[in-house]
């Protein structure tokens, strides 16, 4: 009996912690391709870039924890293949590890651009601590940074770059930033906030070429303009690392397909985190979520299934982002919503946007409004109807908005 965890990120380490918390006493091995102890990625684009936190501040557990809990770390190496019949994995160095249960927590990787010049030096991604270190070196005061992609990674990086005094231009293919992950009013709000911090935007703009001999000096847009830069950051989405699962015949569909308990099409193999396509009962659909809370929820489910302990409660998906002095917290997903109720005044930078289907909240986007976020999360989970007029009036305490 033993558990092998493929992937040494937040999800992988969390499975080990949950297994031990549930009383699992057999050996656990984590195989991770980064040579450092499992750490938190969210601060990389924020506190880490700004130099406000060091490596020990990101590390999830100190080395002593793994030793004391009989969790073997095989870091700086990769699993090469999974043999489901013999229930073993083969590592890059040829070693094999037997498992009774396998947990795949390989995450996602940053999507690369392929246009001419995309391999020049100074074109950076942000996924790992090493990436973030490279980026940090480029973010000197007065440096010109172009950020390709106006998603969370792009905007958080832009906010950190501005805080460090670098000049920033964000190039986004769509007509608005956060197009995939936030509603129109929130996109507009964040654009205005960034503009007020002297970041520049090029919307509806696509990059056709990176300019430079060995090091990037600029990017050429489809309209022929060249934006000069000292470094470019590419944050254009992530691709699930599901190749290992595909290669051994586990069902995948842009991510490893799992059930509500993180089990794959093979009952001995679980998968958690960014790499999975998971059911969301609350929304009656399969989704791939890139977020820490999602990985933690699935880690609890996988550990409970392996240990045969009580099934943990289903959670409402949630996300957060810190930019400048703004704390954005999102709960739920706004599928097929008919209406947005604004609570609070967006101009004060403290408000929330409730997405409704009828009089039921499906999602909430809260800026510097943690109470709305927390209460909204509860409303979403319980499908409790609200009174729109009360919800729209920030003077009415949120607990009194229920129908």
């Amino acid at each position, binding site marked *: 009996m033993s558990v092998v965890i493929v992937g040494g990120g937040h999800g992988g380490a969390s499975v080990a912690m949950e297994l031990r*918390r549930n009383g699992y006493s057999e050996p656990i091995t984590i195989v991770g391709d980064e040579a450092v102890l499992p750490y*938190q990625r*969210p*601060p990389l684009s924020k506190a880490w870039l700004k130099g406000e936190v060091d490596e020990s*501040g990101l*590390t*999830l*557990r*100190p080395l002593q*924890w793994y030793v*004391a*809990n009989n969790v073997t770390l095989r870091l700086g190496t990769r699993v090469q293949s999974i043999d489901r019949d013999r229930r073993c994995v083969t590592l890059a160095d040829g070693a094999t590890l037997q498992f009774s249960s396998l947990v795949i927590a390989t995450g996602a990787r940053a999507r690369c651009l392929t246009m001419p010049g995309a391999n020049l030096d100074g074109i950076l991604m942000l996924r790992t601590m090493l990436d973030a270190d490279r980026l940090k070196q480029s973010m000197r005061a007065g440096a010109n940074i172009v950020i390709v992609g106006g998603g969370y990674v792009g905007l958080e990086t832009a906010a950190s770059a501005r805080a460090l005094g670098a000049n920033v231009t964000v190039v986004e293919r769509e007509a608005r930033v956060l197009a995939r992950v936030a509603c129109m009013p929130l996109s507009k709000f964040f654009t205005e906030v960034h503009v007020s911090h002297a970041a520049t935007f090029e919307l509806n703009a696509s990059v056709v070429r990176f300019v430079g001999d060995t090091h990037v000096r600029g990017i050429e847009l489809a309209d022929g303009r060249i934006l000069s830069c000292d470094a470019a950051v590419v944050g254009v989405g992530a691709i699930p690392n599901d190749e290992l699962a595909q290669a051994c015949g586990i069902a995948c569909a842009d991510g490893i397909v799992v059930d509500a308990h993180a089990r794959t099409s093979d009952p001995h193999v679980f998968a958690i985190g960014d790499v999975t396509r998971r059911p969301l009962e609350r929304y009656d659909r399969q989704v791939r979520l890139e977020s*820490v*809370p999602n990985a*933690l929820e699935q880690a609890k489910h996988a550990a409970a299934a392996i240990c045969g302990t009580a099934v943990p409660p289903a959670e409402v998906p949630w996300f*957060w982002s*810190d930019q400048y002095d703004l*704390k954005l*917290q999102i709960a739920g997903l706004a599928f097929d919503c008919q209406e947005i109720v604004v609570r609070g005044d967006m101009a004060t930078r403290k408000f929330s946007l409730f997405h409704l289907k009828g009089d039921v909240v499906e999602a909430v986007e809260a800026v*510097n409004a*943690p*109470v709305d976020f*927390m*209460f909204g*999360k*509860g409303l979403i989970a*319980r499908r409790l109807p609200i009174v729109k007029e009360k919800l729209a009036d920030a003077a009415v305490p949120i607990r009194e908005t229920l129908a």
Partner: protein
Amino acid sequence: MPKITYVSHDGVRRTIDLKEGLSVMEGAIHNSVPGIDAECGGACACATCHVLVDREWTDKVGPPSDMERNMLQFASEVGPTSRLSCQIRATKELDGLVVHTPTSQQSAF
């Protein structure tokens, strides 16, 4: 280094040394003190690192910020000395601090 003692809901005491500047939440996580989840990693965004500060220490620890106070409405077993442990940083003055962890970090609606 300041010593911090965590008392679990069933009375088990665990004392750790916490480097100045680190949070009481980080002390619990790094030393595997059970009873603190800290899902958001210290961003004051989830209310799963709730502790009750021992009454002897409330003056020295001080009150929560407005945002923290608001988040605390959603923690369970909240009392007059409740704080989010990610928002309490270790200092010389807090050497000997005692905090109590609740039965659960499940959010109260």
